């Protein structure tokens, strides 16, 4: 019998350096132009908001602060509206508030979805059937209605962008829950979970350390979906006369412009700026989401 011994390597340089994370990320972006565009837009929006918040006078985001109905000019790059808001200031503040609603609602909705989805799928049994049944029952119910009723029942001063976000979350967790649950179900059948068990890893650690990281693309997708519905829901609530109407939320500005017949009156700049803002926010997220698809499926990664 021969024993196997590794002969010492003759070539000196054998270990290959993994390129740094940043390099890999940049290369990934280069291959995924959509993702790159999404990231660039997002960064631009963040910069716009951050620099804006530092430089503009937030008072001008509210009515009666500047001359009314001014078309875009050097002084007012986005123009001013019927009520005498500087639309640049309104956009900065509105973008920020819209982002807050989106992120809070998206974050919370996703968090609930992740927690319930994991609990449901990982532990199975009656927990699973309860959570799943509740989700499936609630899914066909039009969410907006419930949101409208709740928003309408609150004291107006309690309707802030934060409560708006919570209202949106209230019935928006089922989607992520079901998606995450389905993913965990397939994930937990994967053998690396068995291996982790064999390695003495406990249930909780398996959930957080083995399964969760792999679901990040799905969680990100759920998050994006939540942000979408949050931003849209805040818009619909504005349409129904609910929500914090004084705040320059993008949806509120758009709807105010609509109520004053902005297009008909030739004040085209009034609805345009917030609409583009909204499109950019949501589209950048959609593009990023599209880019993440590839991450979720190693088979189609264009490189090893």
């Amino acid at each position, binding site marked *: 019998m021969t*024993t*196997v011994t*590794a002969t010492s*390597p003759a070539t000196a340089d*054998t*270990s290959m350096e*993994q390129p740094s994370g940043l390099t890999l990320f940049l290369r990934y972006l280069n291959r995924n132009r959509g993702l790159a565009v999404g990231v660039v837009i997002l960064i631009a929006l963040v910069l716009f908001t951050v620099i804006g918040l530092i430089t503009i006078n937030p008072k001008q985001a509210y009515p009666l602060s500047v001359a009314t109905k001014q078309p875009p000019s050097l002084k007012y790059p986005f123009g001013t509206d019927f009520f005498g808001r500087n639309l640049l200031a309104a956009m900065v503040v509105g973008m920020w508030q819209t982002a807050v609603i989106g992120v809070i609602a998206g974050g919370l909705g996703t968090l609930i979805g992740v927690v319930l989805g994991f609990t449901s799928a990982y532990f199975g049994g009656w927990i699973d059937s309860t959570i799943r049944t509740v989700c499936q029952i609630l899914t066909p119910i039009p969410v907006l209605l419930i949101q409208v009723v709740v928003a309408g029942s609150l004291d107006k001063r309690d309707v802030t962008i934060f409560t708006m976000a919570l209202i949106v979350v209230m019935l928006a967790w089922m989607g992520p829950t079901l998606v995450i649950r389905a993913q965990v179900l397939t994930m937990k059948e*994967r*053998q*690396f979970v*068995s*291996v*982790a*068990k*064999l*390695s*003495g*890893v406990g249930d909780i650690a398996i959930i957080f350390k*083995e399964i969760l*990281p*792999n679901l990040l693309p799905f969680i990100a997708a759920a998050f994006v979906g939540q942000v979408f519905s949050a931003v849209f829901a805040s818009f619909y609530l504005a349409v129904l006369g609910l929500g914090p109407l004084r705040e320059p939320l993008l949806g509120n500005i758009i709807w105010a412009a609509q109520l004053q017949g902005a297009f008909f009156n030739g004040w085209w700049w009034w609805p345009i700026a917030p609409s583009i803002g909204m499109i950019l926010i949501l589209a950048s997220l959609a593009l990023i989401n599209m880019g993440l698809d590839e991450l979720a499926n*190693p088979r189609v*990664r264009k490189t*090893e």
Partner: protein
Amino acid sequence: MSNLLEIRNVTKVYQRGLLSAHAKVALKEFNLILPENDPSILTVAGESGSGKTTLAMLVLGFITPTTGEILYRGKNITTLRGAERMAYRREVQAVFQDPFAVFNPFYTVDHLLTVPIKQFKLAKSGKDARNKMDEALTAVGLRPEDVLGRFPHQLSGGQRQRINVARALLLKPKLLIADEPVSMVDASLRANILESLKNLHRDHGVTIIYITHDLTTAYHVADTITVLYRGDVVEKGDVETVIRNPQHAYTRLLVDSIPWPNLDQKWGQHSVRSKESQAEFHA
């Protein structure tokens, strides 16, 4: 009372899907005793779908028997709790069939080795851990600096399978279930890996259940063999005897179909072209 593992009359029935009313009997009234003081290598062989992996999963406690029981050191494995359970987890290890699925794609391959070291406190220090890993990897013919720090998809199937074996070597369990550990590697690597397993058995007294459909390697590695056919044990015994002198018709076909890398030993005369090979063999 010093049986490491005892499988008593275990039957496993899969209820396939929600939509289907059909049940699949994957393993039927299986019995096995592995004594503690006499470690051996046992081969479980059989065609695809004959219940080999099912047996492995049962022993590892990942699925529960439909009927019958599996005793580890005299205790039913489903009832193990606390320290006993930890010991069972520690002492019964596996090399899984699919060398890709066992890696968590999120982590580098180190994860597979560092986690058990940490969980079972196998090393006193980081340096000690690293030494142990290096040792195990070298034993399966891998250069640690070559594989550590890489992601699973950056390694070849053979490399992945060997890291799995390295993990088993590192843990030095009491019972190792190796499910097709060499199915994806070429002949020379196959020799290397089996060699390492054999060494583990010899040097550390590890009992190994070697699962395969490849009777050539089974013949070389194992002491005894159990042949499964559609969940039934059709033949069991000393490997030399069974392969050289198979009794059951199915075993005969199996042995006959071994493609020996020997030009003088042609594939047998049994015609297996009979329609879809659906000829039934009864235990």
